[in-house]
């Protein structure tokens, strides 16, 4: 921390070596540490990862400032990573300590070697707000995955304490979706995209509550923690604080605006306080579609007691249902695609990484990962319905998570739908209330042709017409 204005809390020279890692460009710098890209010196031999994100926490005994709280924060993050490994939490490969007496700023710093993400929800949101303000494409899928992370964290007995878009990381799309992209049919969000990260403020529950350091991000802090009393052990937090933050985040992702009015965080904080005091009602954006409305409303219940009724597993059930039915309105995506096409190069500069645009457009995958691509029906991702140009899941595939009222121009444009009838279909949907798929030769669901139940896979008859729309229904 030689120069606070530089915004880099821990300056690490490029090329710096630690363990099997060589430090590259800085990725981010937060209030508590700095994150750098790194690659393995041995090129990722023996199945080890070749790339990682290195998080430097200035905990050295010889750092110029003896920052006690940073040591506490580093300790929290390490403990969580060691005790709690879950698919939706960013993975820690190892933890190292810098041993470099010649660099007193760095010596003794704790280094967490973390899974390398492609981008963050914050970067994606700021990109979308530039090109097409409004709901985020694939919002439903993202929220389901964020909620999964929360359920995993809470299930393991932890409170995140700082859930916000900057701490929701997005991974590069894997090989499976690259195959789907090749056939022109990828959803806006791959099924395995989200990782929750940044556990500096996470706290392990002691019974029903935990003590967290008294830091927070005002826009995501529930009213009972704004200006709350602080004891000697820190601030009392409960899992309902994460539920509030999820409600704020869901509103932002689904509508493009924060749930509370005001042009600055301070103004929004005052709106939250007056809402919590019962002086102002909750006025959610009219753009918030109905099944989400109830979810956001419950997450933003003004007191811990009311919010406690809605735990992460129950929210996960509801977000899955909402995402399966209503979240895939095609309009915003089409708008976005046009806007991005027009915005061109300028956008690429603004995106935190080219991967963000790739992610948004479901285009070619940013990661060139080598692994066995699934074949046939196995290419159809969980939660999707997939149509194929040849029998038994062979040939080109188009797949959808949601409904599509016109395959040629809608949410996902299916390049062969205008010329070729599908020859087989697989409904790889998830459990819920809308599980079957009926399909139509006309757009806007005209002239129902057939229907397939959940997990059904079958060849379509030889005389099958070309199809143009489909939707999820309760049963066939």
């Amino acid at each position: 921390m030689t120069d606070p204005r530089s915004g880099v809390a821990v300056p690490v020279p490029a090329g710096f070596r630690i363990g099997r890692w060589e430090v590259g460009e800085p990725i981010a710098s937060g209030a508590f540490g700095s994150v750098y890209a790194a690659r393995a010196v041995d090129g990722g031999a023996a199945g080890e990862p070749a790339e990682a994100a290195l998080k430097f926490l200035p905990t050295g005994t010889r750092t110029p400032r003896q920052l006690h709280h940073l040591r506490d924060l580093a300790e929290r993050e390490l403990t969580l990573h060691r005790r709690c490994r879950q698919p939706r939490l960013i993975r820690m490969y190892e933890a190292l300590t810098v041993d470099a007496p010649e660099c007193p700023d760095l010596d003794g710093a704790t280094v967490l070697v973390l899974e390398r993400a492609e981008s963050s929800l914050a970067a994606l949101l700021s990109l979308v707000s530039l090109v097409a303000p409004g709901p985020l494409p694939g919002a439903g899928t993202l929220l389901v995955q964020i909620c999964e992370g929360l359920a995993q964290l809470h299930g393991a007995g932890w409170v995140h304490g700082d859930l916000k878009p900057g701490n929701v990381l997005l991974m590069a799309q894997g090989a499976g979706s690259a195959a789907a992209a090749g056939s022109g049919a990828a959803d806006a969000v791959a099924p395995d995209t989200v990782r929750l990260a940044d556990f500096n403020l996470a706290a392990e529950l002691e019974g029903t509550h935990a003590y967290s350091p008294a830091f927070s991000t005002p826009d995501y802090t529930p009213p009972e923690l704004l200006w709350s009393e602080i004891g000697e052990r820190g601030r009392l937090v409960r899992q309902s604080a994460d539920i509030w933050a999820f409600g704020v985040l869901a509103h932002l992702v689904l509508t493009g605006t924060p749930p509370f009015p005001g042009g600055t965080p301070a103004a929004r904080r005052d709106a939250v306080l007056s809402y919590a005091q019962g002086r102002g009602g909750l006025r959610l954006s009219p753009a918030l579609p109905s099944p989400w409305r109830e979810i956001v409303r419950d997450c933003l219940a003004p007191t811990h007691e009311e919010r406690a009724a809605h735990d992460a597993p129950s929210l996960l059930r509801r977000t899955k249902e909402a995402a399966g039915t209503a979240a895939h309105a095609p309009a915003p995506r089409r708008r976005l695609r046009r806007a991005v096409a027009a915005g061109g190069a300028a956008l690429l500069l603004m995106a935190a990484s080219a991967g963000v645009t790739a992610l948004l457009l479901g285009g070619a995958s940013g990661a060139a990962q080598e692994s066995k691509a699934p074949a046939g029906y196995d290419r159809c991702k969980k939660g999707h319905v997939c149509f194929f140009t040849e029998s038994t899941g062979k040939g080109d595939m188009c797949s959808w998570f949601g409904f599509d009222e016109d395959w040629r121009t809608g949410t996902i444009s299916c390049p062969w739908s205008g010329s070729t009838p599908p020859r087989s279909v697989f409904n790889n949907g998830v459990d819920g209330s809308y599980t079957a798929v009926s399909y139509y030769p006309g757009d806007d669901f005209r002239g129902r042709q057939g229907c397939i139940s959940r997990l059904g896979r079958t060849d379509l008859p030889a005389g099958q017409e070309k199809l143009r729309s489909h939707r999820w229904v309760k049963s066939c």
Partner: protein
Amino acid sequence: MFSIIVVPSPCGGSGEQIRLEPGEILGFGRSERRIDGGRQLTIPHCGVSRTAGEITATGAYWTLTNHSARQTYVVENPEGAGEHIKVAPGRIGAPVPFEFARVVLPAADELLTFDVWAPRHDYADPLAGSDGGEVTALAFPLDRTKRYFLVLAALCEPRLSGAPHAPLPTTDQIVERLRPVWPAAGRAAVQWNIDYLAVKLRLKQPPESADCGPRLNGKKESVVSLALRFDLVRENELGVLDGVLTA
């Protein structure tokens, strides 16, 4: 969730602090209650009108309404070397930017005062980067130019300078230590700042807190342990005690 504290003048009135939540309104004047049943600070002086004005807690700051037809009210910043604002007769909702303020009402040949604190003022963390992102904020925004920061630095000095279990300085020792940068410091002023720090840092009152005995000591101890735990004062900031403000 209060954001504003009104401290009546010690002479006359009940002398009890009044805590206001954002949006709450406190009337002040000679009458003992407001017509609309709202909260009222009574200033028992015949030179003050019945409904002299209103204070509205507005988020982290407050506004002053002057109901008087002829008199200008002055709001001073007691630590601001003469810094003040004037609120003209009839002005409604004038915003007051000071963390500490003293409202001065002219009444006959006297000047009546009461204090208003706004302990929730926001300050940026001097170490945080400014990349425009959503910054995880410090929960304790301290103004490093205020006297309370001097007092806090003096309280933490022995433990920051390598003696983690050193006894805390007494109030007299603090007065002595601060003499070069704050010549007018006195016991009462230092004690006042320690009390204010406990409010500012939102210290939880220990359950056994009594009205007398070891309570004050406990408060000082809690303030220091919280400040050290969260690095509210850092070793390189002790320069303020010698008049050097480090960025």
